[in-house]
């Protein structure tokens, strides 16, 4: 049976995350080839997923002072333990 647009929207994340089997992927690709609305929706979700990942990469540029304090705490711990 053909997937409806609602069905496709429920499987879209698993599709983008590479979690679906061959048959399920084929059904989705077939639907996307015929349905402009779902092709746009999948494009939106793909962009959202990429933006979320990109946000994680720029969220912390690395605080040298914090890194120093972690390493200093560890060094102190090792010295007091030895």
């Amino acid at each position, binding site marked *: 049976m053909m997937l*409806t*647009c*609602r*069905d496709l*929207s*429920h499987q*879209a*994340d*698993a599709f983008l995350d590479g*979690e679906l089997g061959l048959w399920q992927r084929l059904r989705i690709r077939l639907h996307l080839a015929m349905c*402009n*609305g*779902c092709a*746009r*929706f999948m*494009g*939106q*979700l793909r*962009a*959202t*997923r*990429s*933006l*979320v*990942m*990109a*946000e*994680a990469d*720029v*969220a*912390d*540029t*690395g*605080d040298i002072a*914090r*890194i120093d*304090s*972690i*390493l200093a*705490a*560890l060094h102190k*711990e090792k010295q007091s333990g030895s």
Partner: protein
Amino acid sequence: MLSNETELLQRLVTGDRAAFEGVYRRHNAGMVRFATVILRNRASAEEVAQETWIAVLRNIGGFEGRSSLAGWIFIILSNKAKTRVKRDGLSVSLDTSVDDDPFDDAFDGRGRWRDMPELWDEMTPERIVDGRQILEHVSEAIDQLPPAQRAVLVLRGQQDLDAEEVCEILGITDGNMRVLLHRARLSLRQSLDQIGR
């Protein structure tokens, strides 16, 4: 365990500062965001993240690779955050329930789109590099998600933990995790969709 992760671990064990800086930059913001979900307080979350890093470096030699390095770090973080919450007499439970899907209203009785989704030709990944403003919008939208959705999005959608690791850390089923991730991405999609209007 991936071979590049094995190499990274060896560098961490030998106290390679550059290796630690790389791992810290990759995970720290996500750790603070995740711990904030549990602790409901950013300052406490930053303290717990710092304690976690010290524990990670102290015990890195004993890491056996049964989970990914990121999964191991987040399990330690989660345990420390839950311990802090209990110590402070707060509730550790996270509301992971999901109600009916409001997105189902987007479809008619035959499961077809009521309104055609917009074409996002302005938000291709190529534009992300210069899209600082868009990313700031994404940050704000993530911070406004319900706590359980935010937690799943950070662990699965940003830190790339395995589905099983996410379920173990949050104590939820695979089905529940997938619904929470789906809802989170749909909310962000809707938020982004409103930018260009």
